[in-house]
């Protein structure tokens, strides 16, 4: 019972771990390059979900100050650090995805398939 309660409290992390594993599986073991990339994005987003959930505190609001009359109190706002890290991280994964997709486009133009194992086999034939 205690285990179930913990799992429920940690639900965001449980989901992100699940997504991370699915993404990693797809990234490494799926022969389809596009699906590999989808796996990569899933994996990265799982990490961002986990990072964001690190900053949440029950009952507090987003860290944007609207009342300037008094110095803001740390009791009112959630932790701003994870949000900032996620912002940075998202840009990084957008860039990587764009680069990888461009690479896939070129590979498809050359080999007319997006299946990596098929490409590897035809390359071996080229060399032989």
């Amino acid at each position, binding site marked *: 019972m205690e285990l179930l309660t913990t799992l429920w409290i940690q639900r965001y992390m449980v989901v992100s771990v699940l997504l991370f594993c699915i993404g990693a599986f797809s990234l490494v073991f799926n022969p389809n390059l596009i699906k590999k990339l989808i796996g990569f994005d899933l994996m*990265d987003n799982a990490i961002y979900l986990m990072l964001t959930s690190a900053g949440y505190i029950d009952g507090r609001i987003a860290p944007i100050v609207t009342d300037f009359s008094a110095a803001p109190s740390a009791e009112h706002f959630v932790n701003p650090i994870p949000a900032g890290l996620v912002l940075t991280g998202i840009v990084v994964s957008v860039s990587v995805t764009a680069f990888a997709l461009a690479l896939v486009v070129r590979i498809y133009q050359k080999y007319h398939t997006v299946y990596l194992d098929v490409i590897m086999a035809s390359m071996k034939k080229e060399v032989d």
Partner: protein
Amino acid sequence: MLPLYYHVPFFSIVLLMMTGILTSIIHSGKGAMAFHLTMSAFVCGANLWLLSILAPEGECFTYAAGILPHPWGNELAAGPLQAALAAAFAAVMFLCVLGGSREIFEDVEAEKQNLYFVMCDLILASLMAMVYTNDGFTAYVFIEINTIAACALVMAKDTGPTLVATIRYLMMSLLGSGMFLLGLTFTYYITGHLLLINIHEQMEQIIASGTYLIPVTVIMGLMTMGMCLKSALFPFHTWLPDAHGTATTSSSAILSGLVLKGYIVLLLKVIFCLFGEANYRAFHGGDILLAFGFAAMVVGSVRAMGETHIKRMIAYSSVAQIGYIYLGLGLGGRAAAAAAVYQILVHAFTKPLLFLCAGQLAAASGHRKQMYYLRGAGHRARLAGIGFTIGALSMIGLPLLGGFAVKFFLADAALASGWRMWLALAALAISSVLNALYYLPAVVQIWTIREHGEDDLPKLPRFSPGFAAAIAIVALAACSILLGIFCAPLGKLLSDGVALL
């Protein structure tokens, strides 16, 4: 006011990034190259200056990259070890680009040549950042810069095999950086910090109190595995021979000499600055690295013996040489870590030498890279032949050359490490023999004079290396000899530097 030399680490990074940005609008490839060479020489000089100030006193400092120091803002940390590594990386980058310049202009599309140098600039900037950073998240961002730029170097030749090698490399690297980021996230969960110094303080408390032992173990596993994936430690080396073997000459040289090393330096910082070496060893991280390092030394050499393509052979040899570094990291202790760093330097100078010379030898044999065609290539391209011989002998471990110094330091450090001594000494002995078994036949092959009519190879003319490449080969060969001759003072410098981490 801070003394001027405090600004060197920050300026090395930012100047190189700005160079990269400006290079993207220089239309001529030659101009872009000149700009890159100037800036990397300048950065190398600045870091040597920093080293000359820090080394005598054993000084190290932290530099707030913003208004606040740790634990609040981004920070850089510099000491003799970081300065030495940064200077060496900049020098190697300069020589790699100089030495492979002719191939760059042949292999890369004319109107996209300047973009090749953008990648070189940003790789150097990210290496500097990885060497100097004191912040886990900065490390992650620059890991990604390094990954993308390194992949771009592989694909610069723009043929089918290089594109495929690039995507395989990219996928492996992405998994590695994903694991590093996940490890960093867990670290943030349990420590609440991102700066290495503060994480270390918290880690000591956590481990002493025994609260989060499972997360700590998993963090170690994830970060180590991520960096091992990216630096091609043995079971994860499958992408390396394709990526390094198919790329253009200076890309191969930069990738094997520099890019792999950046991640290892980061792992060194993770071990020493994030966990603390004693903690890392208490969780048996060192033993695992030792085992995989041993396996890499053997497997890399055995696979290299089976290769007939000279660049792939050298690439597999990189797998074995990376094993030496991990052996040093795994043995534990200051002396062994210093030996590992020494191997980083030696390999950073020797492997580009081998790649540049192999490229020249292949060019002298009608751009064919199979061993069979290289017979007698040393006589056609004499300088490249001599350089290849020096590099190969250094890798085998001939005294007075860099490789020997590394083996000596490793063996010396192993003597003080109990049962691990036997494993390390066995690894060194086996790997030296195996290295000799594939490098010596290659050397003999390139110096064998072809009898006329002995085989069906056409008679080839003598090959001129070109002025730039000649300078690069001579300088790299001189560095690998100097690293062997002056191993005592350099070893002391690095060992002091490791102690200051």
